[in-house]
């Protein structure tokens, strides 16, 4: 290589270095990792895991985490926290007035990283707030009509959010200006999913028991299509979109896939239970992973909806969505366990110890799994990080819904013998003493029963 070229390359590296250091690329920029909520990190850490660190705050739960370079960001009740990914130590915090805790998101615009989160002050109302992460200062604040719990999605230079009245907002990430607003039928509890030029929103109207999957044009907010199931609806899962499809779970226990831009239903797959509204499926090419409320994790073929496998955990899933980390699918359970499944067989390969809080949204980086833990009693809320444990051991536990012939037949055979003997011996003796009922041969009926 000529000397001049080497000098040029060296100059570029030297000049670019501070910028790269300041603006590390988002690894897991929002709920389920990206605007479509795919929930996949191909080079994510593989099980087995060991706890790396915990981060706890006084006074309530934390939102699911987003990861930007070596920084973890999470929203608490009274502050937004920046945490060191490697150590779990707090690097900074931003004051927050209050309001429901929901997922933040980070996007890159005009050469700077902007963190978007919801703040709500008494008497002022709810706002979407933009913070320049490079200079750590608030750059805009956009008021919302009412309280928002949906969480934020960022796609390119636009942030999307919805509120409890079903208002949907598209906000310029650089300036905070409203690009457009739209209206869903009711409360939105999961972040909108954006893919293929469409914004997808799941909404429920608990008064009329109606649910809605609404598709909007990403540029104008104009309605592209909507789907409302026939049955009375109290819950619809958040949507996940990608590869020309959008997938969500509905009240009738069906996971449905739709053509993203046309709304035609591609397939429906039945599960055992309904779907928590603040969760969403994970999508990778050819595969959909979805978890239902009763703790079932399902792997579905994304083209046909055929169930490849399912694993029933017999514990509730309320706040956690499945994510794919390398060759494993991770899920958080209500009893505080983080569990990992083999992606091809569905066997449980690793599980953490139960902890006092339920596991919420999971965030992944190449080295660390960060799971948000929401304390049931509100006293031990925080983030729990796991890392690959080279000395740990994997297990292989099939779903209890797979037939184990030895256990099935063995337990039944023992029960049959025990129950038959326990019932038969005393009742036979008693019956011999009492004799048969008296109406044998008795057209006249019931001498025995004359009381």
């Amino acid at each position, binding site marked *: 290589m000529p000397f001049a070229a080497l000098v040029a390359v060296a100059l570029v590296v030297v000049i670019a270095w501070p910028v790269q250091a300041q603006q590390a690329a988002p690894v897991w920029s929002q709920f389920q990792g990206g605007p479509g909520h795919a929930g996949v990190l191909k080079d994510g850490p593989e099980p087995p895991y060991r706890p790396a660190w915990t981060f706890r705050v006084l006074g309530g739960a934390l939102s699911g985490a987003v990861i930007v370079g070596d920084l973890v960001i999470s929203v608490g009740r009274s502050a937004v926290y920046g945490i060191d990914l490697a150590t779990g130590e707090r690097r900074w915090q931003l004051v927050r007035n209050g309001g429901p805790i929901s997922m933040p998101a980070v996007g890159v615009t005009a050469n700077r990283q902007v963190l978007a989160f919801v703040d709500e002050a008494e008497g002022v109302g709810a706002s979407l707030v933009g913070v320049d992460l490079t200079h750590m200062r608030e750059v805009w604040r956009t008021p919302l009509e009412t309280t928002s719990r949906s969480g934020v999605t960022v796609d390119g230079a636009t942030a999307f959010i919805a509120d409890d009245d079903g208002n949907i907002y598209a906000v310029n990430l650089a300036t905070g200006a409203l690009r457009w607003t739209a209206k869903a039928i009711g409360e939105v509890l999961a972040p909108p999913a954006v893919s293929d030029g469409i914004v997808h929103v799941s909404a429920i109207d608990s008064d009329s028991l109606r649910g809605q999957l609404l598709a909007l044009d990403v540029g104008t907010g104009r309605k592209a299509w909507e789907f409302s199931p026939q049955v009375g609806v109290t819950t619809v899962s958040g949507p996940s979109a990608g590869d020309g499809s959008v997938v969500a779970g509905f009240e009738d226990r069906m996971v449905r896939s739709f053509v993203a831009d046309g709304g035609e239903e591609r397939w429906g797959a039945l599960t055992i239970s309904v779907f928590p509204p603040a969760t969403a499926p994970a999508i990778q090419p050819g595969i959909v992973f979805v978890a239902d409320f009763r703790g079932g994790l399902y792997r579905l073929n994304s083209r046909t909806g055929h169930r490849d496998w399912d694993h029933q955990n017999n514990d509730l899933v309320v706040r956690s969505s499945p994510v794919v980390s390398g060759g494993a699918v991770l899920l958080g359970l209500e009893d505080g366990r983080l569990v990992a499944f083999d992606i091809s067989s569905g066997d449980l390969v690793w599980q953490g110890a139960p902890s006092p809080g339920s596991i919420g949204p999971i965030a992944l980086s190449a080295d660390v799994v960060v799971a948000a833990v929401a304390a049931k009693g509100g006293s031990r809320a925080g983030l729990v990080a796991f890392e690959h444990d080279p000395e740990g051991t994997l297990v292989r536990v099939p779903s209890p819904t797979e*037939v184990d012939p030895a256990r*099935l037949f063995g337990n039944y055979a023992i029960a049959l013998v025990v129950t038959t003997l326990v019932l038969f011996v005393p*009742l036979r003796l008693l*019956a011999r003493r009492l004799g048969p009922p008296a109406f*044998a041969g008795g057209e006249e009926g019931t001498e025995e029963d004359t009381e």
Partner: protein
Amino acid sequence: MSKKRRKGKARSGYRSPPSAREVRAAPADSEVPPLLGWLSRGSGDSGWPSIPRSLARGALTVGSSPALLLVPFLFVFAAWVALVTLGLEGPVLLLANMAAVPPVGTFFDLAIGESIFGQASLVALTVTAGLIIARSAFFAVVSGLIVEALEGAPSASAGLRRGSRAIPALLAVNVISFSAILASRLILPLLGPQFAFLGSILVLAAVVYYLAAVPAAAIREGRGVQETLRRSARAAAMPGSRHLILSVIYVFVAYPPLILFTPHSNELSVNPFLATWIYALVAAFIHMSFLAAFCYRWMAIEPEVPAQPVPRRR
């Protein structure tokens, strides 16, 4: 034990239905509204055996017969394996009512079909229909064995033969149960959630009340399906409240408590624990005891059941 037991000749095999002359004429004061007889009379003027005696006789009949224990126990296991093969993944509490008497059993057939294949699905209805047919055959056979045992000379082959003749009547009971459950699902939600649950239990109790005597009547009398159903309903409408009370007891025992106390009741598993199996088999015994109690009661009042509809009291 009866102090006045008649040492009658031992009998076995098919018994001719009582002729019109053999059947006692209904007493004059039984001219009550045919569907509300239980409201107008005390229990003392009825030919129904007492409830404790009926249940004790039912339990003794089933528990002292190896066939009457093993056939339901094997049915529970075979039904579970068949449903798992179809795609059922639990919960294991379904085992507690696998041998439930219609309409409670029918209610669970419908729930199982929907659990595997979803609501408003044609496949679910087809599977439910298959379950109903299997359940009808099972109950016909078991009822045959029970009647044989109650008649004092149990013969498995005679019981099977007589029971198989009752399959159409049992099928009719299940179809009526299925229709009543579907209708109540459409209507009861209009009353609100609190009343809907109570209403669904009362619908089940009403079907038990009117149709509980069908298995024994079909086996003992060998009449047509329609006439057998009528005879069962006429028996239910006879004076006294014992039959109603027993019907309600059965539904209240079988529906909420029996399933709620199942060990690991909500666990999704196809490999139940030993304790769950033992509980399921004991539950099957309880269901069979109730079925035997209903058969016993029919046999006790059979001669008193009017051959014709009782005229309404004016």
